[in-house]
């Protein structure tokens, strides 16, 4: 909400402060100010001048030379403006002064434009006469200004030497407020002025509305029927006849202009003015176009069509509330009036409407219609029904004040029973206990008085005025105390109470370890979106029947590319790698710790299983085995000291069929790793080899332990034996190692592969493989016999696998 400070000051007469003070103090008391703009920021030394005489410029057809009385002296000013004549009163910027912009009305320069005495085609010119654009505004807000040329004052308003900026109402500052949704009352000048008065501890003088109307009674002329009272708790109407359409007075135009509202004519301006002032939107119907002098408020029917006053045809539905006359709709309630009943220049009699509508209904209707107006923006917040009659009376008073018509006596007021106004017990100790303060009851009561909460000593109750719909409980009252006492004056302490143990959850500690290890191994942490496109499954060559395709769909996504909750982290990883690859970053290694979302059933009836995945991916330096090393390093670091099992037959379609493995630990499947299928690599616009691994953290966490135990350093020597063998290619080293470990017994300390060779010296279809075995007994020196016995078992094992030893 934007409004001029002068309007606030009109109701808080004692308010004197700098713009910055106002900004700071209002913000600290809870009316947040987003920013402010001084309208005269770049306007200096501008006075009213009277054109005494005009003569032609000797050397330029389009220029004239004016002698101008600026009060203190007579100046010669040369201008090219076509619209001035002798006797006109105009704004004149003197030598060394400043204007806000150029006469073309283009964007305003940050520091304005300085004006100096000069010569125009050889003739001296002392200062400049200004157009409204040069003064930083335009004809939208000053409709009386000429289309081209100098602004001309009304002769009755000013005299030479007057401050021209004052006369235009530009010595003002427009403040932009961020009103929170609970403070419906502050979407109005009166609401903000009340806060300002309380904040600065000054008296609050809201407008006084005098009684209006002739001796007739509207109730004898017009009938209003509210059929759907659930959507319209109150409908007030008044009538004005013998309307004289014309411009509204300068003060009203200037206040509207400063609030960013275009002045149109007295009737439109009054409705806008009251909407700003009271926060109550109003509508004016041409009563001669309302058939049967009857208003019916009721829901539309599905599929009804209606032309709003902007000339657009709208399609309605049964949840949209309409204002109708005896035989047709004439307006969409709270949103926009109809073309068929709108006020035109030849209006004679009109009906003012000030109503309250169901906020959520207006909000939803406006959304469905795609028609959000100033009025609907206010109604949707849920207005105070007690405000409507006050606002409509204010509007009628302005009609009379401005001489815009004859107000008919009486008011139609169709009102559902009003909610009782809230009363709350005054509990000062409770407020102090909640705030941690020691504020006296007297101080609290002073605060309440400033914001119109009345206190009844006998009952010890606070009476909450109806416009404060946000004050419902004791905590709300405590906030009122706090914000006017000053949040900054409340002490700063730390909670007492029993000491509590600060800690990470266990899975978080495992994740922290995963980050450490990944980073030690050169992987940087990536973060990817949780949602992606359903097309990723095709991109990853994932089979149509794969359960991974059972993904949760977002009903209102930002677009197809963000429409499903991911069931795999591969797309995020490969997309990130691809970004790097295509930006020519070398040897990129990334990891991600993020959730996948596995539905228990579709469509979703209960929350999905959110599974934290550790994803590792890289291209460039490294291979399958380096990735395998990172995984094992991680498993060891979280106390998983047994050997993970690798199954090459995992059959993952997105990985190279000969270079992939699923990983199990103690029979539990914990993830997979492999080289990405070359077709997938190409689908992600990359070339070369790309590796990924995914570990399922919920499967891993129960297998981990941070327990550590020292087992001593061996005191007795180890005995080593080398085994060199030739085996068919398809025999997996893992199987050989497993057999050696099983048969080697307790004394077998380690098995290390130290040579692997395929090629010329080995027979076709075979590979040569060599292990170094180390035996040790922690208690004594091993004898040859003991080692020999173990070796014999191992050799038997090899024999049973049909493996021949190399001589």
């Amino acid at each position: 909400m934007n409004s001029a400070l002068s309007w606030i000051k009109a109701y808080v007469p004692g308010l004197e402060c700098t713009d910055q003070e106002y900004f700071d103090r209002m913000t600290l008391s809870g009316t947040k100010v987003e920013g402010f703009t001084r309208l005269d920021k770049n306007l200096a030394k501008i006075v009213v001048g009277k054109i005494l005489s005009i003569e032609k410029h000797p050397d330029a057809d389009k220029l004239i030379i004016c002698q101008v009385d600026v009060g203190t002296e007579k100046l010669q000013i040369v201008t090219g403006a076509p619209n001035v004549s002798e006797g006109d009163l105009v704004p004149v910027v003197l030598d060394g002064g400043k204007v806000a912009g150029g006469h073309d009305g283009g964007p305003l320069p940050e520091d304005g434009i300085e004006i100096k005495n000069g010569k125009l085609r050889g003739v001296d010119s002392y200062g400049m006469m200004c157009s409204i654009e040069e003064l930083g505004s335009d004809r939208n807000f000053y409709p009386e200004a000429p289309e081209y040329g100098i602004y001309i004052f009304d002769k009755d308003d000013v005299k030479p030497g007057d401050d021209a900026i004052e006369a235009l109402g530009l010595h003002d500052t427009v403040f932009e407020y961020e009103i929170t949704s609970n403070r419906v009352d502050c979407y109005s000048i009166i609401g903000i002025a009340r806060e300002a008065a309380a904040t600065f501890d000054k008296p609050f003088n809201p407008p006084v509305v005098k009684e209006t109307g002739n001796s007739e009674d509207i109730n004898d002329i017009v009938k209003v029927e509210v059929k759907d009272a659930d959507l319209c708790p109150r409908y007030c109407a008044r009538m004005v006849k013998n309307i004289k359409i014309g411009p509204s007075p300068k003060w009203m135009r200037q206040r509207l202009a400063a609030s960013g509202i275009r002045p149109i004519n007295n009737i439109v301006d009054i409705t806008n003015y009251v909407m700003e002032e009271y926060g109550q939107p109003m509508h004016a119907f041409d009563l001669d176009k309302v058939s049967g002098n009857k208003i019916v408020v009721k829901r539309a029917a599905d599929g009804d069509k209606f032309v709003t006053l902007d000339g657009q045809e709208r399609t309605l539905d049964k949840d949209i509330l309409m204002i109708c006359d005896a035989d047709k709709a004439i307006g969409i309630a709270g949103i926009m009036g109809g073309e068929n009943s709108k006020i035109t220049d030849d209006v004679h009699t009109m009906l003012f409407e000030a109503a309250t509508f169901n906020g959520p209904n207006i909000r939803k209707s406006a959304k469905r219609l795609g028609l959000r107006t100033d009025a609907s923006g206010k109604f949707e917040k849920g207005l105070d029904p007690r405000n409507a009659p006050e606002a409509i009376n204010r509007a009628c008073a302005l009609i009379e004040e401005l001489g815009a018509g004859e107000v008919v006596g009486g008011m139609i007021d169709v009102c559902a029973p009003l909610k009782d106004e809230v009363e709350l017990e005054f509990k000062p100790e409770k407020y102090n206990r909640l705030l941690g303060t020691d504020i006296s009851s007297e101080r609290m009561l002073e605060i309440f008085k400033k914001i119109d909460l009345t206190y009844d000593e006998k009952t010890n109750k606070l009476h909450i005025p109806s416009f404060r719909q946000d004050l419902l409980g004791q905590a709300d009252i405590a906030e009122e105390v706090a914000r006017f006492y000053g949040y900054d004056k409340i002490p700063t302490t730390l909670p007492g109470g029993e000491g509590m143990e600060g800690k990470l959850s266990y899975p978080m500690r495992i994740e922290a370890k995963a980050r450490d290890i990944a980073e030690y191994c050169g992987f940087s942490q990536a973060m990817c979106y949780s949602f992606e496109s359903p097309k990723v499954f095709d991109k990853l060559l994932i089979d149509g029947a794969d359960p991974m395709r059972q993904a949760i769909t977002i009903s209102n996504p930002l677009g197809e590319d963000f429409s499903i909750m991911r069931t795999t982290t591969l797309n995020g990883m490969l997309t990130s790698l691809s970004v790097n690859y295509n930006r020519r970053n070398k040897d990129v290694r990334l990891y991600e710790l993020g959730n996948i979302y596995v539905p228990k059933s579709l469509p979703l009836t209960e929350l999905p299983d959110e599974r934290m995945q550790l994803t590792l991916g890289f291209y460039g330096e490294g291979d399958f085995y380096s990735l395998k090393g990172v995984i094992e390093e991680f498993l060891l670091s979280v106390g998983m000291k047994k050997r993970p099992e690798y199954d090459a037959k995992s059959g993952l379609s997105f990985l190279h069929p000969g270079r992939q493995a699923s990983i199990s630990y103690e029979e539990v499947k914990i993830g997979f790793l492999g080289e990405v299928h070359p077709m997938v690599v190409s689908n992600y616009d990359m070339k070369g080899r790309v590796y990924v691994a995914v570990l399922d953290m919920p499967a891993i966490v129960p297998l981990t332990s941070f327990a550590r135990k020292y087992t001593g350093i061996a005191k007795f020597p180890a005995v080593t034996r080398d085994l060199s063998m030739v085996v068919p290619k398809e025999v997996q080293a893992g199987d050989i190692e497993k057999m050696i470990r099983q048969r080697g017994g307790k004394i077998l300390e380690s098995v290390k592969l130290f040579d692997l060779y395929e090629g010329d010296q080995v027979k076709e279809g075979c590979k040569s493989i060599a292990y170094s075995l180390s035996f040790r007994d922690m208690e004594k020196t091993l004898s040859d016999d003991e080692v020999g016995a173990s070796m014999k078992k191992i050799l038997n094992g090899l024999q049973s696998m049909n493996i021949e030893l190399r001589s």
Partner: protein
Amino acid sequence: MKEKLEQIKEEAFKKIKESETLDKLNDIKVAYLGKKGELTAVLKSMKDVAAEDRPKIGALVNEARTQIENMLEESRRKFEAAAMNEKMKKEVIDVTLPANMPRMGHRHPNTIALEEVERIFIGLGYEVVSGPEVEKDYYNFEALNIPADHPAKDEQDTFYINGDILLRTQTSSVQIHEMEKGRLPIRMIAPGRVFRSDEVDATHSPCFHQIEGLVVDKHVTFADLKGTLDSFAKQLFGEDTKVKFRPHHFPFTEPSAEMDVSCFKCGGKGCRFCKGSGWIEILGCGMVHPHVLEMRGIDPEEYVGFAFGVGLERIALLKYEIDDMRLMYENDDRFLSQF
């Protein structure tokens, strides 16, 4: 005899002094101290000495031997040291050549910021917990005092799965899960991912992170909330940081506030970073709304609480001066490796 010994000694000393190599020293050793050396010869000629003089001469010979040996040893050390120095001279390296960096990965700026926040609150006795990202409407809204028709539901631009299930728009939902556990008092922070349907641009992302804080205990005050967050801000942004609490509105806290911190770039004087105001908005907070406690079966007459919510990206972007939110989810190595 004595003179002869002196003469031999002098001769040996002179030769040692004149020698330039370790080989020469060895030759001298052999020539004087060896089996056929001159001193040995003197010992051998002892039989010609009178018996009563023998011990005296013997002692003299031994003394000469020791002196020669010492001098030889001293020279040997000198030569060895010189040789070592010579060798090292040839081994001079250019210490300004580039370091051979170990290849370490880098932590995402979000995580770095999160770990700082976690460290601070763990120090204050808070447990770090988490809650679901795909959430029931009830936990995200209704239980937080945001009923079906509340405008805040629109303002938050929620992604829905269906009428009942949505992507949480705030980590405040974890407050409810914690209260539901029925363990009091509570002191927790809940970091996590949240979602809002904002188009991607330099300052918005449909996925981002928040950290929720909640304390529920018998005697907690707004002053305690201020003190806790003041301590947090000072630890996070520096000891000189000032904080400012402004009244605000959240449906699930009352009284509510927003907290600004003095601009850590200009110290509060006003700069481009803080848009001239000297202050930077950091978080929203307040005293837990009694109705929120009530709905969880916690008696608001007995227990009070405070809560706060911080945007993680906001902190990371501010602290590390990252000027575009998109960088956070692009995962460009040139970005990540700066952290």
